[in-house]
């Protein structure tokens, strides 16, 4: 009997290789789990049939294009869209024998922090189904935690991998910008989007990253990795310099339970041999959010212009001329959050406002990058909570966009600088997972994996949601 709640991808590879389990059996186990638990959790928008392959299944966030498999970006405007090409990351997964298990739920066009913005209904947190799994990649994170997939691909623009992983209690990596191809991934904010792995543990996460990473000629913003990805196996942190940025760890928005769990993890770092010290990034938290909520919507307003009903997707039939067709297609097809962001973004780029808004935000971005770079002269990794709170109740922030945006307070700053970040679960608060965010300089994934693995081993967090553990 395959226990999908506990099976790691690494272990599944071994089982398949040693023929203890067949590809069909493995697939069937996940299908059975999906049939049992997904009606409640709604992680999946589309589940695929077994294609007869022998490799590990993987869940794919529905902003990543899969040839022949419906891809909706969580939006009505792409309700019946079926891509005619695979994203590069999908090609790479397939080249490694991985099989697409299904497409997971997402906030519409990856815009959100809870999946409540999905046009197809929210996903639910496997730890407590009255609460959100985080977003925008809540479907992928919830699927992994609920044993509905061994691992998954997500996308992170301002925290959309890290934050759901924090709220669901698993490991998510936002890679260094430029190390994973965006070709075939539905664009939200081009200079911020990155596809990344979501997994049950750090080694699986590193393994999946090594499968998808590397320069892609189809994406001009990608680069080769300077060195190969190593699967971590060390249990100490000797020689590692860990920085604790004040503004990220003492912010008033952080819940006491989150703060305590992270504090214990920081102390653990010292016990494991790391040099831990304080530091300050004076502008990053305070100006990160406003900077992000100018740049991301601006780029999004342009990236979403192609959804016009001409070549694919939804087309409104009520208009009589082209202008009405465009305007109604987009008003009827897009949900509230994309419309909000398109409007903000259009305004920020418009004549007379560019310098004050978009132009200024691009400069703030430089300030944030410089602050992080300065900190990395003294430290190898910066540590903080990933999310200020544990999973919140469904509906509790949906009416207030600004309150929802605060979910990303701590994940956004490093995204603006193109830096990698790993979420590692570090404990529970009120029975819900608390996530630890590890930020490193560009191309420092191996360091992040090393640190995450050592902490994971020492903390011994059980990633199986308590209520599912029988």
């Amino acid at each position, binding site marked *: 009997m395959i226990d999908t709640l506990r099976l790691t991808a690494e272990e599944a590879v071994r089982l398949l290789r040693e023929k203890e389990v067949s590809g069909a059996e493995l697939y069937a186990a996940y299908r059975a789990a999906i049939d049992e638990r997904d009606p409640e959790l709604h992680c999946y928008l589309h589940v695929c049939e077994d294609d007869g392959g022998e490799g590990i299944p993987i869940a794919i966030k529905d902003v990543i294009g899969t040839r022949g498999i419906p891809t909706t970006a969580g939006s009505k405007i792409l309700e019946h869209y079926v891509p005619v090409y695979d994203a590069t990351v999908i090609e790479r997964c397939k080249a490694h024998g991985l099989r697409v298990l299904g497409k997971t739920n997402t906030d519409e066009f990856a815009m959100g922090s809870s999946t409540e913005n999905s046009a197809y209904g929210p996903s639910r947190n496997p730890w407590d189904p009255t609460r959100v799994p985080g977003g925008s990649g809540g479907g992928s994170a919830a699927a992994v935690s609920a044993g509905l997939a061994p691992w998954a691909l997500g996308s992170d623009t301002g925290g959309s991998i890290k934050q759901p992983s924090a709220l669901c209690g698993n490991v998510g990596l936002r890679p260094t*910008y430029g190390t994973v191809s965006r070709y075939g991934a539905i664009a939200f904010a081009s200079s911020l989007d990155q596809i990344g792995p979501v997994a049950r543990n750090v080694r699986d996460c590193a393994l999946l990253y090594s499968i998808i990473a590397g320069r892609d000629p189809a994406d001009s913003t990608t680069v080769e990795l300077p060195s190969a990805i190593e699967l971590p196996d060390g249990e100490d942190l000797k020689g590692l310099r860990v920085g604790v940025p004040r503004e990220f760890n003492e912010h008033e928005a952080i819940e006491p339970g989150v703060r305590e769990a992270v504090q214990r993890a920081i102390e653990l770092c010292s016990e494991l041999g790391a040099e831990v010290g304080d530091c300050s990034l004076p502008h990053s938290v305070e*100006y990160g959010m406003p900077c992000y909520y100018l740049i991301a919507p601006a780029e999004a307003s342009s990236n979403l212009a192609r959804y016009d009903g001409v070549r694919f997707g939804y087309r409104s039939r009520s208009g009589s001329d082209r202008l*009405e067709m*465009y305007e109604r297609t987009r*008003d009827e097809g897009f949900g509230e959050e994309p419309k909000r962001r398109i409007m903000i973004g259009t*305004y920020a780029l418009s004549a007379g406002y560019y310098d004050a808004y978009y132009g200024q935000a691009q400069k703030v*971005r430089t300030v944030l990058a410089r602050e992080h770079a300065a900190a990395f002269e003294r430290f190898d990794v910066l540590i903080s909570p990933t999310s200020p709170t544990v999973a919140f109740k469904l509906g509790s922030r949906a009416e207030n966009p600004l309150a929802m945006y605060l979910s990303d307070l701590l994940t956004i700053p490093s995204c603006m600088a193109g830096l990698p970040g790993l979420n590692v679960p570090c404990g529970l608060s009120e029975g819900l997972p608390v996530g630890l965010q590890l930020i490193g300089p*560009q191309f420092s994934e191996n360091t992040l994996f090393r640190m995450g693995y050592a902490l994971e081993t020492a903390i011994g967090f059980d990633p199986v949601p308590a209520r599912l553990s029988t």
Partner: protein
Amino acid sequence: MANIDREQLLHVARLARLELREDEVERLGAQLNDILAAVSKVSELDLSDVPPTSHPLDVVNVWAADEPHASLPVEEALANAPEREGSFFKVPPGGSA
């Protein structure tokens, strides 16, 4: 900083090709003004000497050789077309879009 009034809102909506319903105009207008007030914070910093960041990585000169790839078969190109005539995409007429 700036407050978006109704006229500006409708202008922005037109630039973005969004036909907002009346209830949307009101609700979005209020929300946008809240968000704008929050993001306007960026103007607090004096950044006259700071260059803007367009790309997180310092990469230049990426281009490809002028060698053709296979184009899509025409049926795939039109596979998702909401409306077509023969092998053309069909759209309603209009002076502008």
